[in-house]
């Protein structure tokens, strides 16, 4: 039984190692290259003053408040958009390639016809997707903490850890949405469209809804906001933020597995 589970999780995990390596490199390059410019920004008061003179709503929308501070710099340069976006994109592509993409290509049939339940099969693939997101979270965290040390960014490790973990959980939430869609239908384009739309709309809601008094209260519906709306680089994060992202991520994967159990498997 242990061998079966090792294969159900390890098989799709190993199959994604190239993509995992690629995303890891992208995260390292992005984080290190951004943090490497901190010493230049720290000394350039003109730039930070110019940014501070932008209208407050714009500063909020693009996460540029306090750009001259370490937390503001990391938020504006990485954690307002880029890093969460990388996690969301990786989540969509990992989830899609492990499920709907493989099924659409006809490569699941041989595996699903073996003596394993469909729920176990889908659960194994979901765990592999979440495992890769966990790996990326560790890679991002290690890169960030090491870069902070190397380039002298004076920021506590606690808020940084909270922020990176929340980015990873945002990715897990988006992966959960994709897994639900993939469980329902073997249409990779649909899985990708829904995944990217959820991520993009979620960011737009968080960034732009506050600009309108009518829409501002609705910004709470955005998972992006659940992750980063409380400015975790400055304030750390409440426990509910982790639960609100991680819980539904698992729940959505379970819904996907149950849906996968009930439908036809697509052939080549």
């Amino acid at each position: 039984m242990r061998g079966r589970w090792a294969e159900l999780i390890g098989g799709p995990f190993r199959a994604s190692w190239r993509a995992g390596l690629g995303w890891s490199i992208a995260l390292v390059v992005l984080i290190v290259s951004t943090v490497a410019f901190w010493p230049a920004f720290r000394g350039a008061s003109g730039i930070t003053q110019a940014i501070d003179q932008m209208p407050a709503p714009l500063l909020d929308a693009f996460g540029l408040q306090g750009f001259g501070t370490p937390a503001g710099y990391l938020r504006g340069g990485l954690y307002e958009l880029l890093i969460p976006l990388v996690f969301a994109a990786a989540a969509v592509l990992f989830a899609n390639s492990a499920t709907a993409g493989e099924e659409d290509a006809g490569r699941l049939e041989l595996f699903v016809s073996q003596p394993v339940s469909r729920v176990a099969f889908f659960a194994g693939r979901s765990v592999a997707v979440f495992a890769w997101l966990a790996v990326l979270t560790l890679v991002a965290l290690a890169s960030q903490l090491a870069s902070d040390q190397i380039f002298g960014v004076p920021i506590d490790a606690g808020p940084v850890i909270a922020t990176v973990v929340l980015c990873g959980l945002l990715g897990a939430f988006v992966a959960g949405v994709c897994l639900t869609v993939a469980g329902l239908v073997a249409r990779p384009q649909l899985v990708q469209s829904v995944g990217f739309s959820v991520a993009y709309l979620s960011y737009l809601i968080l960034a732009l809804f506050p600009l309108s008094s009518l829409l501002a209260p609705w910004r709470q519906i955005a998972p992006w906001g659940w992750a980063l709306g409380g400015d975790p680089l400055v304030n750390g994060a409440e426990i509910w933020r982790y639960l609100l992202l991680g819980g539904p991520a698992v729940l959505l994967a379970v819904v996907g597995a149950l849906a996968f159990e009930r439908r036809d498997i697509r052939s080549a």
Partner: protein
Amino acid sequence: MDAQTSQAALTTDGPAIHIEGLVKDYGAVHAVRGINLDVRRGEVFGFLGPNGAGKTTTIRCLLDLLRPTAGRLEVLGLDARQDSLALRSQVAYMPGELRLPERMTGAGLVAAIGRLRGGLDTRRRDSLAERLDLDLSRRLRELSSGNRRKVALLLAFVADAELLVLDEPTNGLDPLMQREFLALVREAKEQGRTIFLSSHVLSEVQRAADRVAVLRGGALIVVGGVDELRRRARQRIEVWFDGPAPTEELAALPELVNQHTEDHRFTALLAGSIEPLLAVLVQQHVVSLLVEEPDLEEAFLDLYEAAS
């Protein structure tokens, strides 16, 4: 349900496959229209039909990859839907449309499937690889379609399964390997295993199968032994007369269809008893009489023409 505990429910008597009123619709498309079929234990059963006849759909319903619109399917006494997990531990399946994970090696894929099946007989794997002349160390994307087919064949025959379901197993195999495949089928049959063989290569089925079912447009046309099927097919008759052919007497015989006369030569297809024809021929000066035994292909085409 755990596959091992469920195996207790496996029965050793009754048909290996029992299909009752199987219907599978895809929206307005009727892929399978009410199939009833029993496959006996220990037999090699040929499932014949052209592309789109419903062979693969039926097979995928048997393996619970597709959910039937209506009907009941039992495999080795187990319900294909409720007991699918226990059932699949006793069934080895080779898909017709073969899409394998390209970055894996043959050995990696065999090991992965072995882990999912709860074990693998490595000696048997090596022996099969040798017989199929297969290099398992190569990546699957580097293999020709024939060699990929060999990997799938190895996966089907290496499994310790009571029932082998093989969908178009020899597509892309060279004649030498087709012969090896037939030898493997014979050996599996000798071991008491049941082989459900879907194909449109009639010669292969003719050589391997004990019984066949012919499918057309999602419905069964006929089920029977290969010899019986041949007997049911029309035989080709060719008669050479010393003088002009007695066309009027021959035209009066309803058993003779597609009649054609050319001077002293008469040809037709015999659909029924040969006695009335012989009664006419004894009155004539016959130079030669040729009655050709139809092979399965002719029987097959015949049945198709009759069905359409």
